[in-house]
């Protein structure tokens, strides 16, 4: 502030001439300014710090799940083990053990064989079976495959299972570690990017579990939710904004829509369970039921944002169109709605992002089921990303701790992507009047 006179401001003018009181007052006011700024900055830093801590915890826990330890083995497919005419009757466990024996040269007792086979995933038998089924001509020779290592050994390879812990207190025995080190020395142990996290469905073995079922489930959920809430939401908003008379009834509807937007989401879940599943007989755990429930939840958001977008269109546009002889319907469909579309789409995408992250109502309608194959349509049982996180967070196996965080990262990625689209649409398409 300069020392120029500001006429008419009583106290300041009166006290001004070289008064110490004025200087003290100024100092106090500057100090108050600084305090306010510091308080604001501290608040922001605290918020950023907490967010950072949250992200850091999730990322540091989740990153290990993006690689998966694999063991490359040559599985012998001798004719005595595998009958090409009847692949179903083959003892694939024996084939898998054969692969391990071929690498380690062990002819161990059955008990030791069991310990040995625990190094790689239990589902290795099905991986080998499927590979041979796809290529039956291999029978008689051998097949080289990289199969996931079992969860404790994945942890060992990533340093999560410590070797200096007494043997009785860890999930892997000294003998198993020796075998694993031998495999490692032969260059058979690799830790490539964990594609299984995206392309496998759920499994009880962390090393085999992936998000394919959850991602497809969430996709179907959002599809159903969009197909219902988008047209219904826009139609109600247009009616309320363009056609409805202003009276007590429309006021009541408006208040109710605003209240619905603030309703705890679990209530929609209870409603879905009671109405859609128990009365209409919609299938439990299916994206159809989930999508119906979520569309109820998203509707108020879409209606409110659509009405805001419609309100933002200047009356001059409507009046000009009406003046040219357009009917009410033509004004809305040909002029107002297209101009309001960017705002409507932004609101819809934000509503969809909200639906994507919603868990509570889905738990009530059973979308936290364990299904080992991705859903084939909206009537098949499936999980969604948030409910998958819920299931994994509750599993005893160690590997699910990092996979839970990895799934959170994937969900956050999708949410960021959707919000980025909304921001892009808003900045690119929105017109200012």
């Amino acid at each position: 502030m300069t020392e120029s006179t500001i006429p008419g401001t009583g106290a300041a003018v009166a006290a001004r001439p070289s008064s110490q009181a004025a200087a003290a007052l100024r100092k106090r006011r500057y100090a108050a300014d600084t305090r306010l700024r510091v308080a604001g900055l501290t608040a922001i830093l605290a918020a950023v710090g907490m967010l950072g801590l949250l992200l850091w915890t999730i990322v540091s826990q989740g990153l290990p799940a993006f690689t998966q330890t694999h063991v490359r083995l040559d599985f012998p497919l001798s004719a005595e083990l595998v009958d090409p005419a009847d692949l179903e009757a083959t003892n694939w466990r024996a084939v898998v053990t054969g692969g391990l024996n071929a690498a380690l040269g062990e002819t161990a007792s059955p008990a030791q064989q069991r310990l040995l086979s625990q190094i790689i995933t239990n589902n290795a038998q099905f991986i080998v079976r499927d590979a041979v089924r796809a290529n039956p001509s291999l029978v008689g020779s051998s097949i080289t495959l990289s199969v996931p290592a079992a969860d404790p050994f994945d942890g060992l390879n990533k340093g999560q299972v410590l070797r200096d812990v007494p043997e009785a207190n860890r999930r892997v025995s000294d003998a198993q570690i020796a075998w694993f080190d031998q495999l490692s020395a032969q260059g058979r142990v690799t830790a490539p990017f964990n594609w299984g996290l995206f392309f496998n469905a759920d499994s009880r073995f962390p090393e085999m579990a992936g998000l394919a079922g959850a991602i497809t489930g969430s996709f179907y959920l959002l599809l159903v939710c969009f197909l219902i809430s988008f047209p219904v939401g826009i139609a109600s908003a247009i009616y309320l904004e363009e056609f409805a008379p202003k009276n007590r009834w429309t006021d009541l509807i408006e208040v109710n829509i605003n209240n619905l937007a603030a309703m705890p989401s679990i209530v929609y879940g209870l409603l879905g369970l009671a109405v859609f599943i128990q009365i209409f007989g919609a299938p439990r755990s299916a994206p159809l039921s989930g999508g119906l429930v979520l569309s109820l939840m998203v509707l108020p958001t879409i209606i409110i944002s659509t009405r805001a977008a419609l309100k933002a269109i200047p009356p001059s546009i409507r009046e000009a169109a009406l003046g040219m002889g357009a009917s009410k319907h033509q004004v809305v469909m040909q002029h107002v709605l297209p101009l309001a579309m960017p705002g409507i789409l932004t609101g819809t995408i934000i509503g969809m992002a909200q639906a994507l992250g919603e868990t509570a109502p889905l738990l009530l309608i059973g979308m936290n089921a364990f299904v080992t194959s991705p859903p084939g349509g909206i009537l098949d049982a499936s999980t969604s990303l948030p409910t998958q996180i819920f299931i994994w967070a509750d599993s005893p196996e160690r590997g699910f701790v990092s996979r839970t965080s990895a799934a959170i990262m994937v969900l956050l990625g999708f949410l960021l992507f959707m919000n980025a689209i909304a921001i892009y649409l808003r900045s690119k398409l929105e017109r200012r009047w």
Partner: protein
Amino acid sequence: MKLALHAGVAALALVAAVSGAQAQTRDQIRIVGSSTVFPYTQAVAEQFAASTGGAAPVVESTGTGGGFQVFCGGVGADHPDITGASRAMRLSEFELCATNGVDSVTEVLIGYDGLSIAHSQQGPELNLTKAQIFQALASEVEVNGEIVANPYKMWNEIDASLPATAITVFGPPPTSGTRDAFVELVMIEGCEAFPAIEALEGDRKDEVCERMRQDGPFIEAGENDNLIVQRLNADTNAVGIFGYSFLFENSDTLKAVGVDGVLPSFETIADGSYAVSRPLYIYLKNAHKGVIPGFEDFVNEYVSEASFGEGGYLSERGLIPLPADQRETVRANVTGGVAMTAPAK
């Protein structure tokens, strides 16, 4: 605005599909029930789907009581085929089933689950009796023949031989089947050691024996056992109560608290010397036999030696198998589709 129109038509079609869905049958098995039985059913479901290539069964964790509610809802494709339970079916549930036409149900005892009391590896050795656990956790205890509000804050106030650390116990909330089992197996038995409580009658006795303290040392930690495990690692003096499989998976950071001098292990739970264990059941709806594809194969997989036998994949997950002769009986019951009779209570 063709798009909006098309979307509207599609939405109507969807709603039509909902009402049509009721009539449609299903090709996959649906299982509900206890969250304790859930991991075992999960294992069988995955094995079944991978080995037969059939439709993957849908397994849902609803809790024991919630499972019976849905299971006993009726017969037909809209209702689940199997429910898991961490306690036997109650008479009220049996009657609910009967009223809804579910009159032939086979009860299958699949094995035992140990409840473990554990704490961090860094913590002091603890060995408790059921009476001491009762004294540490009950809302009212007996002191000098009087029943008073629980005064104990430190373990060594209960018994001088116990460590001088504050009592901090994380346990399941009242909605959990684990909590029911804990109260039944530890608290009720623990309170038998106190003559003044034994002298009480009726509801008052149940109340003293069953009510957990609310003044701080016992902390309800939610249904998520992993959370309890993490808290125990953070607080080395705290003790947690959870299923044995969580202790088994986390044996590098946690150690068990002995109960009446016995530590939980597969052997001690199976032979009954570790007394804090409970039976686990699955219930089969016989009316769905031959109607839901794969139902019988799935159940046979469940009671096969490779699954619930000794060294089977369920025991690798923490289930304590039944003795061999009992397994035979269970298998015979399952194949014969023997319907259960009304439970005593």
